[in-house]
């Protein structure tokens, strides 16, 4: 059985729980990496994702110039050169440095938003599916109503009212993702809950929370993993699109979406200012999607156990 991403329901001290959760996560991560490397898609996707994670962690430190340093007098909108490898923008800022330091905010906000959405959606979907009956009906109708609206539109409304800071962006994405994740997790809960070991747990008198998280959840992990990877790539697209509309990280920090938006005025004369962040967004999402595809394919290669 796959290592359980343990719920904090164990009868242990908080520290033990934390270490065992961390260990389980690491084991799960290691096995995912091994799986990913078995397919061509994963072998391309993994390095792309790793590259972006490295950029997110150290991009700012590795950048040749401070991303906000102006070279207005002498280097405005210069093409790529040895001094500025990817050219400079309208304020004479180094495009490469700006792209390198833009990964941090995009990836951390997107990841936080996706994780929040996955966590909330899983809880809502699984409880609703497990409970069934009237509650389930009502919850799912609410989810339908939430889904009858483009997520970008909800995000726009919320962020114009609350202001576009990283916490609000991640929170909005988390809320927007509840409905789709809940739907998926509900249907896989329905499939698992009628199995015998669930009945056995119920007859043992286990509490519902235990049954949902320790009996049902581990058996829905493959579905959850696929859904999670889809959510991660959507989340990145959403954050980047919000940035493009001016609702991302606020200037002067660099945001790939905003960089592209601002570069449109001089796109004919200086296409590199748009191309560099475009390539950055594209390679990140392509990497995540390829990696997800690779893991999915690798799971199907051998007969999966149980």
């Amino acid at each position, binding site marked *: 059985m796959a290592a359980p991403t343990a719920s904090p329901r164990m009868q242990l001290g908080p520290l033990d729980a934390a270490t065992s959760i961390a260990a389980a996560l690491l084991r799960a991560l290691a096995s995912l990496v091994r799986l990913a490397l078995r397919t061509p898609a994963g072998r391309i996707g993994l390095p792309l994702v790793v590259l972006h994670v490295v950029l997110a962690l150290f991009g700012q430190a590795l950048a040749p110039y401070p991303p906000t340093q102006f070279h207005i007098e002498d280097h405005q909108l210069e093409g790529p050169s040895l001094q500025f490898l990817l050219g400079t923008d309208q304020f004479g800022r180094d495009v490469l440095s700006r792209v390198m330091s833009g990964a941090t905010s995009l990836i951390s906000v997107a990841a936080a938003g996706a994780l929040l959405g996955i966590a909330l959606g899983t809880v809502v979907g699984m409880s609703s599916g497990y409970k069934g009956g009237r509650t389930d009906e009502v919850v799912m109708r609410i989810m339908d109503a939430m889904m*009858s*609206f483009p997520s970008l539109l909800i995000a726009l409304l919320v962020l114009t009212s609350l202001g576009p800071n990283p916490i609000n962006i991640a929170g909005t994405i988390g809320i927007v993702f509840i409905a789709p994740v809940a739907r998926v997790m509900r249907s896989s809960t329905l499939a698992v809950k009628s199995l015998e070991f669930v009945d056995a747990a119920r007859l043992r008198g286990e509490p519902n929370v235990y049954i949902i998280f320790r009996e049902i959840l581990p058996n829905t992990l493959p579905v959850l993993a696929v859904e999670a990877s889809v959510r991660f*790539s959507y989340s990145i697209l959403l954050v980047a699109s919000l940035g493009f*509309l001016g609702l991302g990280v606020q200037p002067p920090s660099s945001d790939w979406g905003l960089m592209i938006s601002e570069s449109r005025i001089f796109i004919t004369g200086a296409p590199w200012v748009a191309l560099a962040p475009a390539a950055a967004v594209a390679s990140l999402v392509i990497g*995540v999607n390829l990696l997800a595809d690779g893991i999915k394919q690798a799971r199907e290669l051998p007969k999966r156990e149980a």
Partner: protein
Amino acid sequence: MTRFLVRRISLIVVTLLVVSTAIFAITEILPGDVAQMVMGQGATEQNLKHIRETLGLDRPAPVRYLDWIGGVVRGDMGDSFVQKIPVTQVIAPRLANSLILAGFAFLVAVPSAVAIGVWMGVRQGSKTDHAVSVGSLVAISLPEFVTGVLLIIVFSSFLGWLPSSSAILPGTSPLTRPLILVLPTLTLTGVLFAYIMRMTRANVIEVLNTQYVRTAVLKGLPMRRVLLRHVVPNAMLPTISVIAVNMGWMLGGLIIVENVFAYPGLGQLLLTAINTRDVPLLQTLALIIAGTYALSNLVADLSYGALDPRIRLT
């Protein structure tokens, strides 16, 4: 069947009610109101008060909401706060523009995606299949604003074939200058095509492995007939729901694409409505969007029934 329709349509009405309440509540907590937006920062308290009174904003929120709903029921969507003309007049030309754009994207994307999806499903594992798979994955991965900007760089800046901006004078139809529609349509088509193509391909592969297809092949039917009679109708079922879900996505995509190309459609109007706190306009746009999405889902369910006689709509 009638019961099904009645139930679904009443559900749609409930959904629209929920959506409109939610939007109204959100606009209530938006900082700044339309009076502030119209008058700017230098407005005196007196002026603001006057505008709020003429727009009826001095009444409590629930009263305003009920008033608005009452109007909607009678077919009156209210007047735009900013432009002072009926919301329907503001929206109509924009809606037409967006429908043209979305319509073209659908016309291009759906048939070609289904055709190529079936073809790739049949030729599963071939070199072409791998190439198309990678291509479609890339298309899915690119946000619309990246695709749009890349297309502008290639076709406007570099080749100079197509205009980079799709702005048109108010009152003119984009159909009078069809060239401006090419790049926005292509941008919207990209992702749509890729989704539908991948879904169709996956379903075709699944159906090809079924017993009834094997039977059809073994009893000597020509391959063309097997595909058209047995494979495609069955493979289309899940694809249809993807197309319906994509309607909702496309409305979100329109916001971005119209922004990239400065195309005067619903998406642009929506951004304006949010920024100017034009609540009646925003409300109506929200209803249109949620309604379109709900209706396309209903149509998808109805076509399930038409394609698969085993599915009874209850």
